[in-house]
């Protein structure tokens, strides 16, 4: 057995050797253990979690849809259809990647990747608990919102490159919707950031040890929840892929793994949006008895449940109603809320 493949030796390498031997190698091992290991392990964990999360959410979505309509949903593959989403994923993986002849091929291929990448990046700063976070950046919250905005570009590229009128219309709608709803999201988040004076995710959670911000900032919480649902293109805001009007919107021409990437991104975005809500307003990992990560996941999945149920409860908005809601209701309220928060903070300090 070579020393490199011996786990005991590796462990010694990473723990003991870095302390005893000074100099360059010391630094190199430290760098390796801190940077490379964290990046590789973190990336693997994130990809694994994204996949499992998406499969679980697809299962949950279909089951909830079924039970709301008083039917058992899928029951055939595995216990209560448990393996159905896994089988769907396998089917999408092995399916041939068809590319229509009229598309702009490079853009067509790159669009799903652009939609999916921000998801991976956002997971870097999501604090599952005090220690369970890939990188605790001091601009964590900003990183999430900065890269979520990239999502829009991916959708626009996908819709444009498809060379299909329905895809293009879906993409255009998606862009105008996401741009409109980005503003109330950022404004409502700002009012929390003003209170805590930090963008670091762990500090945001730590500030809520005594009282959750949903009690201090109820308006911001509600505004964030509504706008975030719109941001993920979920019903009742799924105008970019309104089946009745636009076939499937921007991903009409996609199939196989490229379609699966869009799908993965949608379900992961649901998780990210709910995770940010839990971090900002519901006290993240704080909670009695149970350990931190479980509390965090519990809060996130309760929110995701509400988002899923909304799909089977509320009808889809018309496009002008959507824009009215964003520009005439959410943004003025978010601005007013921000103003009041700033005034109160100024008076207290």
């Amino acid at each position, binding site marked *: 057995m070579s020393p490199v493949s011996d786990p005991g030796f590796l462990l010694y390498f990473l723990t003991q050797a870095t302390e005893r031997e000074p100099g360059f190698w010391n630094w190199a091992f430290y760098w390796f253990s801190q940077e490379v290991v964290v990046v590789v392990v973190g990336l693997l964990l994130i990809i694994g979690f994204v996949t499992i999360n998406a499969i679980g959410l697809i299962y949950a979505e279909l089951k*909830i849809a079924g039970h709301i309509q*008083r*039917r*058992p949903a899928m029951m055939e593959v595995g216990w209560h259809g448990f393996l159905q989403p896994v089988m769907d994923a396998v089917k999408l993986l092995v399916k041939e990647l068809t590319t229509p002849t009229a598309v702009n091929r490079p853009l067509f291929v790159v669009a799903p990747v652009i939609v999916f990448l921000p998801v991976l990046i956002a997971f870097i700063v999501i604090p599952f608990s005090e220690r369970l976070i890939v990188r605790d950046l001091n601009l964590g919250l900003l990183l999430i919102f900065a890269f979520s905005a990239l999502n829009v570009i991916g959708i626009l590229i996908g819709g444009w490159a498809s060379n299909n009128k329905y895809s293009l219309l879906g993409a255009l709608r998606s862009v105008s919707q996401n741009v409109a709803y980005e503003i109330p999201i950022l404004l409502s988040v700002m009012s929390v950031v003003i209170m805590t004076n930090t963008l670091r995710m762990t500090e945001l959670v730590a500030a809520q040890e005594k009282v959750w911000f949903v009690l201090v900032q109820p308006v911001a919480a509600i505004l964030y929840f509504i706008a975030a649902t719109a941001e993920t293109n979920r019903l009742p805001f799924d105008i970019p892929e309104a089946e009745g009007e636009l076939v499937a919107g921007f991903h009409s021409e996609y199939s196989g793994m490229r379609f699966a990437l869009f799908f993965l991104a949608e379900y992961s975005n649901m998780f990210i949006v709910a995770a940010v809500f839990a971090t900002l307003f519901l006290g993240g990992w704080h909670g009695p008895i149970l350990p931190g990560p479980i509390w965090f996941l519990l809060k996130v999945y309760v929110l995701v449940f509400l988002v899923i149920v909304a799909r089977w*409860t509320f009808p889809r908005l018309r496009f002008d109603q959507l824009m009215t809601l964003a520009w*005439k209701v959410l943004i003025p309220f978010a601005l007013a809320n921000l103003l009041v928060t700033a005034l109160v903070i100024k008076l207290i300090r």
Partner: protein
Amino acid sequence: MKYFRNIIVGGWSLVLGYSVTIPEIFKPIITVQYPRQKLEMDVGYRGHIELVRLPGEDGHFCLACGTCERACPSKVIKIQGVKPKAGANKAGVMYLIDFSRCSLCGICVDVCPVDALRHSMAYDLAFYSRWDNVIDLVARFKEQQEQERS
């Protein structure tokens, strides 16, 4: 004022919407897993027709009089009857009906002078060939009788 009223009414409608759908999730399921579970049909159900079987009686009551054959609006019934011996009543030996074109109107049941016909409880009629739709009710009758005996 209308603006604020709209927001309050709209916000309240969100709560109402959730209060309708979320309890619905926890109510029992009312659909049936079809190939594994089957519904028991109600007495009033009008399935395809069959010959009346009574517990004590051995045979069917069809006289092969041809009233149903003449009354059938779709002309899907074909009967053949024989007299077992001189002076006896005629008895149906073949009662062919094409279920693919039968509209389950029930006129044959109504006009039968000896009430030999009734609607069955069967509801899943599907065949691989359209000729399989033509069923001999007398043969079916005998088959079912033998199944009951064994």
